């Protein structure tokens, strides 16, 4: 239970020596991550300009593609990586130079990292023993945590004898018994199959009410981020792209990267659109069709001093309307339709430009969108996100 402040944090991994590199490559045969991290003389800049104030008991999710520096950030909070520059506070204390064992944090690792030679009980008791708690208190707390996580029957088992989901629970339980100031989780669900993952996600939400402490949760899965986080931090190439509530980042992505990263299916992006300023009002032309922007949008654009220019317009698939009347909007070819139960995903092309629409299925009409037919799609100006072609930033 404590706030956590990251103040302009930077992490540089020194250049590895040649032999180390070779060794590393040999060891994990995973493909090289494709990132555009900045590389300086000192090394690879994995994280930079990272500033974030995490309120007490807040649930923060760090999300971004693989290699963007999420784990590095989390490990700096844990004290497992040295902070190259900047300040880290837990509670009111600056902890840059405090050892992990003295930070009073708990962490769940991606591969669980259970102690293989200890029983589940001993795994969970280990941290409490290190805190020199009495035997009775340790026993009570371990059993209470086991009860909550539904692992009481497993207490005497060794990790080897557990399934993936059970190991996951034990790993969470081991962190949970401690009642830590900050609860850190690094992709805790990524080793589980899809069904178990959904189930555990729901359990983490429930668990959170019981633990009532500050959470920092790392994932590459934006669905997890949207469902779990009070606020989401979206990262790319070592930089924060946007910080906000799930609604904020969904409804107002600050740049093209966030727009494309958050939301499934991805937001439709149209690159070569003309934004024209006409007095106090603005118009935008998308593939030959002109739209007048709303009053609110115009006011915001005016306030930001936006001039006429070429821009990229983004529209979420749920906001695309599709009609069989080929004249009712921008015409397109239906490539594929996917039945998703209550909704239909329509993949369309207009020349090079692809558009995805998500439309509810109305079983009462016989109107059917056929594959390979010609249709028209349209959207409302109010649903448009406008991005500068130059900077990729949201113009509003």
């Amino acid at each position, binding site marked *: 239970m404590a706030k956590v402040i990251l103040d302009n944090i930077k992490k540089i991994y020194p250049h590895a020596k040649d032999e180390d590199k070779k060794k590393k490559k040999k060891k994990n045969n995973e493909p090289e991550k494709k990132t555009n991290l900045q590389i300086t003389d000192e090394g690879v800049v994995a994280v930079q300009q990272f500033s974030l104030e995490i309120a007490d008991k807040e649930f923060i999710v760090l999300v971004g593609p693989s290699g963007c520096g999420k784990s590095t950030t989390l490990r700096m909070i844990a004290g497992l990586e040295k902070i190259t520059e900047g300040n880290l506070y837990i509670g009111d204390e600056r902890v840059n130079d405090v050892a992990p064992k*003295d930070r009073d944090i708990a962490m769940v*690792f991606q591969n669980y990292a259970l102690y293989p030679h200890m029983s589940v009980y001993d795994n969970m008791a280990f941290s409490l023993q*290190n805190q020199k708690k009495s035997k009775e208190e340790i026993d009570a707390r371990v059993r209470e945590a086991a009860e909550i996580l539904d692992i009481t029957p497993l207490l005497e088992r060794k990790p080897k004898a557990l399934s993936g989901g059970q190991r996951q629970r034990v790993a969470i339980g*081991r962190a949970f018994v401690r009642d830590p100031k900050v609860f850190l989780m690094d992709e805790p669900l990524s080793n589980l199959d899809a069904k178990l993952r959904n189930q555990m996600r729901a359990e983490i939400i429930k668990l959170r009410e019981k633990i009532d402490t500050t959470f920092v949760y790392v994932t590459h899965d934006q669905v997890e981020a949207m469902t779990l986080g009070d606020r989401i931090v979206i990262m790319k190439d070592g930089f924060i792209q946007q910080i906000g509530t799930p609604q904020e980042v969904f409804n107002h992505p600050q740049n093209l990267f966030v727009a494309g990263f958050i939301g499934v299916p991805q937001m439709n992006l149209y690159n070569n659109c003309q934004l024209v300023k006409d007095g106090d009002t603005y118009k935008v032309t998308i593939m030959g069709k002109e739209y007048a922007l709303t009053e609110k949008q115009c006011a915001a654009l005016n306030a930001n001093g936006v001039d006429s220019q070429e821009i990229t317009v983004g529209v979420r698939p749920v906001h695309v309307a599709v009609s069989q009347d080929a004249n009712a909007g921008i015409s397109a070819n239906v490539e594929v339709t996917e039945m998703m139960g209550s909704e239909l995903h329509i993949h369309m092309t207009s020349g090079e430009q692809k558009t995805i629409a998500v439309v509810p299925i109305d079983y009462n009409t016989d109107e059917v969108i056929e594959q390979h037919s010609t249709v028209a799609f349209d959207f409302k100006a109010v649903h448009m996100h406008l991005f500068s072609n130059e900077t990729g930033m949201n113009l509003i």
Partner: protein
Amino acid sequence: MGINFEKNSDFKNRLIIFVILFAAAIVVVIPYIWMISNSFKTTMETLMDPNHLLPQTPTLEGYERVLTGSPFFKWLGNSIIVTCTNTIIILFTSTIVGYVFSRFQFKGKEFLFAMLMFTMMVPAQVTMITTFLIIDGIGLYDSLLALIIPSFVNVFGIYLCKQFCDEIPKELIESAQIDGAGNFKIYWKIVVPQLRPCIGALAIFTFLEYWNDYLNPLIYLSSTERMTLPLALSYFSTQHSTDLSATMAAAALIMIPAAVVFLIFQKQFIKGISMTGMK
């Protein structure tokens, strides 16, 4: 037809391998059988009639002379003290130094490790005289400590343990750090249990090395009551004659503890050996 042929050649191969291994096994085992057999013969019989494998007139004379006619139990005690102390100390120093070399970053680490490895290339005989002068200089000549103190550090053991420590997932250590364990506790509670196969193998290596050591006791010990068992074998020989019966009996007795230790640790020993071969 094809299958038959394959089976045939398979059988042939197995037979050849079996014959070779059997011959090798006989070569290895015969001295032991010969030793045990002779320990039940009188010296006279051994010398006069060496062709019989089994003693014609079995006798326990040899054993009697060893157990009652010499300070055998004193020697046994000496051997146990030296071997056990050395084994325990080496297990401790090897695991902890190996762990440090594997997990900690410090200035000059690579150089230090290279130096250590280098000493492994130098035969012990090269440093024998200087070591002797040092031991003598600090007044440890003819004391069991002369066999113990120079053995505190075993470079091979350090190397073996470092290799095993490299294989421990780093998350285990980090997890323990976060769980509030200090460095020594992590070593003792997390690393050592992970090193069990390695410790088993090293325990056998070092136990046998010091249990069978003949050269160092020969150099550093002189009084009869300080001797260790391998050295004591020569006790039954004089310039003019050798009490073969007693020597063989003593040799047979010395083997017993080594065999017991091997049986205790053999499972981990084999696991350790095969794991070192794997990576």
